[in-house]
């Protein structure tokens, strides 16, 4: 039973929050256009690899209304941005490393003047040979993306292993192998990256940005531009989506630079959709070779896998993403002997970055596909094979970390296998209409939660009792649409036994709120939620102690919180919160506490290359079923049913879980069937929403979600994070379903009608 479903006031708050969005009253950072503000924009290279000879900007400077045209020479500080590895220039000065590299920044009085000026900037450069495939980039004669990087185009190599995979593999009765690929994927958050900034008279750089990491942004900007991070104030209103695409600097450093040169005036920067495609971060394309060994009756024994991640020209979070990829190479299965090797490689393709599923999407696709190969070889039911090998509480995952309870891999599988779409699939397939064929597929997944070892996954929460006796929560982690903001109100309202309407939520503001990590890694509700619950406990104790003074009660513990008051049930007397609020000094009305996520206590002796983010202690689990119908004449694939089961600790707000699962499954379905981010020689061929298609309402069925109840003792009221686990299922489940329907062996996604037609003609893929 949900702690919240009975809390009708919680629902009301949720309503208030979403209603302001629905009526268009909510102000996103894109809606913040101060009167008289300037407009900033960027000239992008347009060529994937070149030596810069000159950036000709005289004509642009002459455009009426242009206030400045800035190039590399105007950038103070290191000019280097990046979250962990700082290798990305704010403005490129000597070399262009991908087509989206910025070479000049223009600030103008109007958008028209800005557009005109950008159009007349000319980049004079000498093209250099580029490299566009991560494996070819590792060859000794490959053109170098960063000639001074010690290991050539190899950004990082990682190895995670356990037992002796090589020997165990030799002893296996059955060994299957395969090579699989997943493409770059574009986030397409509906609100493109944007923000506004100015220098105040006191020398503070003030910014309102659509960002997932306001607290970290300060350091990234400060490092790049040689500023004092504490002289930067960042505010993050509700985001119009992000999914990882706003984790790390998009507009931040450029906008800050523009503000530095604009004499105290506000400056706005809005990336257009095409610019976002060109310059924004993408899910890393990955190539994976995988071998899986088992006994004749299907018990997994050994895994060897090699993953190549295309980082593009900059590291961004590539190494950390690879760490997660390797950590999930064995999926949700128990495999005694493993060896997972990864290469994160520089190329001249678009920049790889964080995207929901952070390296795990790639890994799960490969392991699930090879499980299908194994099931076929053993003539086993793919569901049964998965169930037989699914990790149970206490067992070690492929990286050698024991699963803490709960660990719902089996329950998720059992749930989808009990669904009529799986249980009755034979009958459903037999009823396919003329010229149609049907198939059903199943997949299991897991997704780590939080940053993992090496970087404290921390949050501090501040809670204030207002003079009126209401509460202000100073939220430190941005809400990009995943609903953590209303979840925080629900947590606090439950903990303090108050109506949710008494709570006001201050959105992240580095001046008012306390530091917390980014809105990412399915961590926000868990980490900040725990900090907030502690602050609530401090508040409860304080309210009781202060009320005891008024009520002349010498045993404060007999007092209790009730809606709007602190009550003494023994005497029937009470103190209204409004009275406490009016009597207490501000210092005394504020409670602060923090939480740091636990890490694996005895980490396995592997993955030493990964200083950040390996290994993880908590995982959410999932299973997914997809039913497809194929048109024999056109090769079109229709997703008829998609059922996802998740285990994410205790379910406090079933609707919130459904929302995340449905949204994630839709992105997974897009990856499976339509999202083809194509590049050729570093140039993007699908550079806008007319050529890069994401699912519309007509491309998806009614995505179903089922939850398996767990209870994570360390989580706030028992919950774990679950923003990501739902994305993994559709790609491998659709792949298996297409094998089932037309015998297609899917090695890469998205699957296109041509692939299906080839399979129907009996050609080997």
């Amino acid at each position: 039973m949900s702690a919240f479903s009975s809390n009708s006031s919680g629902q009301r708050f949720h309503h208030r929050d979403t209603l302001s969005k629905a009526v268009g009253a909510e102000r996103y950072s894109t809606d913040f256009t101060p009167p008289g503000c300037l407009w900033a924009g960027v000239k992008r290279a347009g060529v994937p690899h070149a030596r810069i000879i000159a950036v000709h900007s005289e004509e642009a400077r002459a455009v009426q209304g242009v206030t400045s045209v800035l190039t590399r020479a105007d950038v103070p500080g290191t000019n280097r941005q990046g979250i962990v590895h700082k290798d990305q220039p704010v403005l490129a000065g000597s070399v262009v490393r991908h087509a989206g590299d910025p070479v000049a920044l223009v600030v103008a009085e109007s958008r028209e003047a800005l557009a005109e000026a950008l159009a007349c900037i000319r980049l004079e450069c000498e093209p250099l040979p580029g490299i566009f495939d991560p494996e070819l980039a590792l060859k000794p004669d490959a053109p170098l993306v960063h000639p001074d990087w010690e290991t050539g185009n190899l950004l990082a190599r990682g190895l995670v292993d356990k037992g002796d995979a090589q020997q165990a593999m030799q002893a296996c009765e059955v060994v299957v192998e395969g090579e699989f690929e997943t493409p770059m994927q574009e986030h397409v958050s509906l609100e493109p990256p944007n923000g506004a900034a100015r220098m105040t008279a006191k020398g503070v750089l003030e910014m309102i940005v659509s960002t997932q990491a306001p607290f970290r942004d300060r350091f990234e900007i400060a490092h790049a531009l040689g500023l004092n991070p504490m002289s930067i104030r960042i505010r993050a209103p509700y985001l119009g989506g992000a999914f990882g695409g706003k984790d790390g600097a998009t507009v931040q450093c450029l906008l800050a630079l523009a503000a530095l040169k604009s004499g105290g005036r506000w400056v706005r920067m809005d990336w257009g959709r095409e610019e976002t495609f060109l310059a924004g971060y993408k899910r890393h394309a990955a190539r994976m070779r995988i071998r899986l060994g088992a006994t004749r009756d299907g018990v997994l024994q050994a895994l060897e896998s090699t993953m190549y991640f295309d980082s593009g020209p900059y590291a961004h979070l590539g190494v950390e993403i690879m760490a997660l990829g390797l950590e999930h190479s064995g999926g949700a299965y128990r495999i005694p002997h493993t060896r997972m090797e990864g290469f994160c490689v520089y190329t001249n393709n678009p920049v790889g970055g964080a995207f929901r599923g952070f390296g795990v999407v790639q890994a799960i696709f490969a392991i699930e596909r090879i499980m299908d190969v194994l099931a076929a070889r053993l003539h086993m039911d793919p569901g049964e094979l998965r169930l037989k090998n699914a990790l149970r509480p206490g067992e070690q995952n492929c990286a050698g970390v024991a699963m803490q309870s709960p660990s719902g891999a089996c329950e998720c599988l059992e749930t989808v296998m009990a669904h009529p779409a799986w249980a009755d699939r034979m009958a459903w397939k037999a009823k396919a209409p003329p010229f149609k064929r049907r198939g059903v597929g199943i997949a299991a997944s897991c997704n780590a939660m939080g940053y993992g070892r090496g970087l404290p996954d921390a949050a501090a929460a501040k809670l204030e009792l207002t003079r009126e006796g209401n509460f202000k929560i100073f939220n430190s982690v941005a809400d990009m649409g995943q609903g953590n903001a209303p979840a925080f109100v629900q947590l606090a309202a439950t903990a303090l036994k108050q109506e949710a309407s008494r709570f006001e939520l201050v959105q992240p503001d580095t001046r008012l709120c306390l530091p917390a990590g980014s809105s990412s890694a399915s961590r926000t509700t868990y980490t900040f939620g725990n900090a907030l619950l502690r602050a609530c406990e401090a508040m409860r104790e304080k309210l009781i102690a202060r009320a005891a003074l008024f009520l002349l009660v010498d045993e404060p513990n007999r007092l209790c919180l009730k809606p709007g008051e602190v009550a003494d049930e023994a005497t029937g007397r009470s103190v209204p919160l409004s009275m406490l609020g009016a009597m207490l000094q501000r210092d005394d009305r504020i409670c602060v506490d923090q939480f740091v996520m636990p890490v694996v206590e005895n980490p396995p002796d592997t993955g030493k290359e990964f200083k950040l983010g390996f290994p993880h202690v908590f995982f959410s689990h999932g299973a997914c079923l997809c039913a497809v119908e194929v048109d024999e004449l056109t090769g079109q694939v229709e997703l008829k049913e998609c059922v996802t089961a998740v285990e994410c600790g205790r379910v406090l707000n079933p609707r919130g879980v459904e929302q995340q699962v449905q949204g994630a499954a839709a992105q997974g379905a897009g990856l499976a069937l339509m999202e083809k981010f194509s590049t050729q020689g570093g140039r993007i061929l699908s550079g806008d929403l007319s050529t890069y298609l994401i699912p519309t309402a007509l491309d998806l069925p009614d995505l179903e979600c089922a939850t398996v109840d767990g209870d994570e003792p360390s989580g706030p009221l028992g919950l774990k994070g679950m923003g990501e686990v739902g994305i993994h299922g559709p790609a491998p489940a659709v792949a298996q379903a297409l094998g089932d329907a037309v015998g297609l062996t899917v090695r890469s996604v998205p699957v296109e009608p041509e692939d299906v037609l080839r399979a129907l003609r009996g050609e080997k893929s």
Partner: protein
Amino acid sequence: MSKTITLTFTLNGRQVRLETRPGTRVLDLLRGEMGLTAAKEGCGSGECGACAILVDGTAKLSCLMLAAQLEGREIVTAEGLGTVEHPHPIQASLAENGAVQCGYCTPGMTIAAAELLAHTPCPDRGEVREAISGNLCRCTGYVKIVDAVMAVSRTTGEKNS
């Protein structure tokens, strides 16, 4: 470039008269000079539906319209459908049914849904999907949006019957 025209039209029920350049995009006119930010820019090229408004009762993409096209028309933006205090039934239903996540697509969705319900008070799920298929949403997977529109259609249907 600097030539301006005077336009007269109805905006959210009020008569408006203003001077602007004929080539200004309606989306910019609304969001800039008029201060109405409910219509959002998601693509600027007619693909996402976030900028939808009602023009004489028909959903149009304001990123593809020029100011001169407003002359004499009746324009309704999401702000004109309702407010937090007095939401339009479709706005209330989207909020109540979990159909709003980041909310960036939502004002545009309300416009598409309002147009549908004006013509087809009791649509089936397929018709709802069809009607909102020009509005991209990256957060919800659409299920709850369709649920929300169906919930309104039922209420409207009951009222009508």
